[in-house]
């Protein structure tokens, strides 16, 4: 069974988001997503300052088997992209909720968070 931490929000497309009190958030993909992708070989991430609306494609995660788009769970502006994934894309398989966070963002519209799934809601989709 895949791991679904209780303190995160989720999309049906298998992204997770962890929101901090200061209005920033960190986004990645779930344990279920990394298992389905298999060996990740490359993560294509946006530049600092890029802006996305809820549901926009913000990057691509590539495995031996397939390339999959990454969807922004919320409207946001990118503050930092995880450069560690450049040299170690396999972190996505090993630490999907830790070392393999993908982007740190400024949340534009906190009200959108209400549309996301909680851990129980996401687990029910798997």
């Amino acid at each position, binding site marked *: 069974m895949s791991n679904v931490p209780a303190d995160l929000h989720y999309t049906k497309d298998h992204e997770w988001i962890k929101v901090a009190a200061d209005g920033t958030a960190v986004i990645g993909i779930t344990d279920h997503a990394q298992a389905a992708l298999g060996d990740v*070989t490359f993560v294509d991430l946006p530049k600092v300052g890029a802006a996305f609306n809820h549901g926009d494609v913000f990057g691509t995660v*590539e495995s*031996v088997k397939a*390339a999959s788009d990454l969807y922004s769970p919320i409207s946001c502006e990118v503050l930092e992209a995880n450069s560690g994934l450049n040299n170690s894309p396999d972190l996505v398989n090993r630490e999907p909720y830790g070392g393999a966070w993908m982007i740190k963002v400024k949340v534009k519209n906190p009200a959108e968070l209400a549309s996301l799934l909680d851990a129980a809601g996401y687990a029910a989709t798997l």
Partner: protein
Amino acid sequence: MSDTLSRTPLFALHVELGGRIVPFAGWEMPVQYTGIIEEHMAVRKTAGLFDVSHMGEARVRGRDAAKFLDGIMTNEMSTIKVGMARYTVMCQPDGGCVDDLIVYRLAEEEFLICLNASNAPKDIAWMRAHLGSHQVEVLDECAAWAQLALQGPLAEQILALVTSTPLASIKRFGFVLGEVAGATGCIISRTGYTGSLGFEIYLPAASAEKVARALLTSGKPHGLVPAGLGARDSLRLEANYPLYGHEISERISPIQAGLGWTVKFAKPAFIGREALHRQAQGGPTSSVVLFSLDDRRIARQGAVVYSGETPVGEVLSGTQSPVLGKPIGTALVAAGHASSASLTVDIRGNRIPLHLATEPFVK
């Protein structure tokens, strides 16, 4: 095509071993167990065991068997020695490929032919439609056989643990009939589809699970792992072996695919000879190239190849090469561009330079 997927005799074992099951060519097959890269590297460094029981088999026998096969295959069949196998293509009159096959000569007048899974019914129908007045019969033995591919530098050492059949004397593309893990009536063949040393074992379907378990148990201390179709694909692409439906197909001939060495124009007549001869003389309109990328993105099937701003081809297969640590692939490229140093491929809007390879990435 039937809507229901077939299962090999090893389906329950795949599930027990944690294989991720996917539909492939009408079969439910494991694409991976622990991970494609790990399984790939095991085959390069130790050994991997693949279930390839989805592959089909046809037995061709009769007084005219060799002559019949010479008339439908591009390679020479009558000169195969008993106990040896040969790779060949079976072509349409226009030179397109019906299938690519391995032909085993069991006796002077008896051959066993290995067919691609998705083509097996088509191949058997094609062979039967071209029997003519030959004294020969084509038997469908797809259900009778299971196939295991034991591949990797330690394959011989591992196989020797479970068979009393002498292995050292089997030449490349040679085979013997023998016993493996108590199962009699097996064909042990020094062939493979990975670019590493190894064997393919044809065995009665009812014995498959017993033999696979014996191999996995005996081979585990030597680094043998079960390997899935994902690693099979990345291994064959590193070795530049064609996959039907990608590098060869009904629209891509053996001449275009760089398999001209399998086409024996010295034979008096065979289906496709005239069309293939024209291509070989005048040069085909397009041909298959092997490439690598100095990039992190993989160019996948269908990605468009450019010369400058002009589309000149498309990617046929693409994956990450675990040995090179970079993307590799094949593409069908229009005549005049097959040795160009300035080709690019479009990957999600990025133009990535193609580095053409003249040799397989592993040998």
